[in-house]
């Protein structure tokens, strides 16, 4: 018997013990773009017993980035002749009020795709005549890279590098999701690589306060299924806990990475697409690094949030709507011609559903 089918048997046994079924439904949320893609790719969502559902939450950094941030980035690219915008790839295609960054580039703006924040610093070093703005998005996995980039830029006394920070913190958004009364969450499948940084023990306060299982899992089929099995088992036992099944994760996380984040950034209120303002859910550049903070160095347009016409990415991100239930899905909105970020980003829920669930329907 394969490991996977043994886990599935255990899952079914725990599910039966819980009395799960169409009448006693459960909804587990993953909060990680990589889980979104892996769960869709493996077909796991369709293999779960009736009544047990694995839905995607706000785990795709590009998707959760508020429209006002996109507009600010496009503004810098188009209106500030001295600015080079350096960004991770998926961001360039998200449409803003004044078009996307890709369209800005086609119109002559200097927009570069980078794989690492350190590349943006190298760019600033090579081009003292340009001001390089790095678009700092992503969760705790990604934030240390931007923090180290800022420290490196200071060490080299670069005056032409800054970060437009919209880094996100996982725990505040999980709390905000639990406070929403229109989304049912019976357990969290917690992201493996964010947890490598923050540690599996970080989820304990949420478990204690909300009595909701939090299980950290990796990205193989077996890992995700194991995570789901542990959550259902905890529910059946009436014993919610913070648990980890992903070997690289330690209870305390990576303390050095957390220190780097803390030296450069400070928790701040931040705005999420679909969820609005969430206290302490973002990371702002500390005052001591003000020279490397794009928001302090440049006059930026006011933060105005809005939904793209007809787009329901906000509801998809919050777990209120399945991608396939959006009226635009697969019709006006496809990966080739995306309307909203969940279809733009390779790890957006809509792109994952389109690629793995939709074809053949």
């Amino acid at each position: 018997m394969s490991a996977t089918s043994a886990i599935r048997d255990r899952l079914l046994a725990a599910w039966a013990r819980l009395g799960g079924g169409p009448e006693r439904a459960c909804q587990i949320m993953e909060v990680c773009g990589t889980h979104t893609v892996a769960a869709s790719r493996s077909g796991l969502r369709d293999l779960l017993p009736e009544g047990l559902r694995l839905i995607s939450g706000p785990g795709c950094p590009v998707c959760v980035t508020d429209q006002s941030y996109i507009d600010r980035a496009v503004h810098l690219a188009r209106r500030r002749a001295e600015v080079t915008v350096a960004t991770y790839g998926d961001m360039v295609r998200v449409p803003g009020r004044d078009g996307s960054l890709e369209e800005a580039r086609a119109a002559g703006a200097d927009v570069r795709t980078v794989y690492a924040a350190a590349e943006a610093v190298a760019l600033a070093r090579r081009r003292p005549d340009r001001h390089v703005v790095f678009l700092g998005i992503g969760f705790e996995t990604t934030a240390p890279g931007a923090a180290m980039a800022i420290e490196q830029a200071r060490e080299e006394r670069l005056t032409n590098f800054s970060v437009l920070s919209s880094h996100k913190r996982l725990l505040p958004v999980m709390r905000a999701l639990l406070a929403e009364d229109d989304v049912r969450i019976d357990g969290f499948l917690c992201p493996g690589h964010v947890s490598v940084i923050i540690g599996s023990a970080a989820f304990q306060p949420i478990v204690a306060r909300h009595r909701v299982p939090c299980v950290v899992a990796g990205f193989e089929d077996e890992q995700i299924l194991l995570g789901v099995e542990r959550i259902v088992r905890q529910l059946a036992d009436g014993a919610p806990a913070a648990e980890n099944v992903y070997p690289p994760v330690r209870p305390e996380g990576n303390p050095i990475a957390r220190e780097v984040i803390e030296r450069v950034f400070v928790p701040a209120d931040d705005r999420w697409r679909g969820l609005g303002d969430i206290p302490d859910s973002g990371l702002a550049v500390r005052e001591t690094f003000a020279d490397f903070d794009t928001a302090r160095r440049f006059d930026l347009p006011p933060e105005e949030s809005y939904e793209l016409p007809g787009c329901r990415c906000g509801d998809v991100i919050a777990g209120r709507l399945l991608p396939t239930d959006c009226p635009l899905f697969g019709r006006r909105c496809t990966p080739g011609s995306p309307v909203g970020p969940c279809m733009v980003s390779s790890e957006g829920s809509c792109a994952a559903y389109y690629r793995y669930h939709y074809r053949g329907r």
Partner: protein
Amino acid sequence: MCVAVPAQIESIEGQKATVNLAGARADVAVTLTPEAGVGDYVLVHAGFAIAVVDPEEARKTFSILREMGALDGR
């Protein structure tokens, strides 16, 4: 975006390591994993190592990421 891929360290110089990542050489920062040595596998995310991993775990993670296309263009 929080994808991290396993890579084997071939050499280390200060805070920088040269790793073998899916058959290609890459330079990564090892600032966050001072315990990593030559021959170890690390999880690499956006140009820096975030954890030291067991070689068997690295092999399994590698195959799943390849299937997901996460290694494309890296």
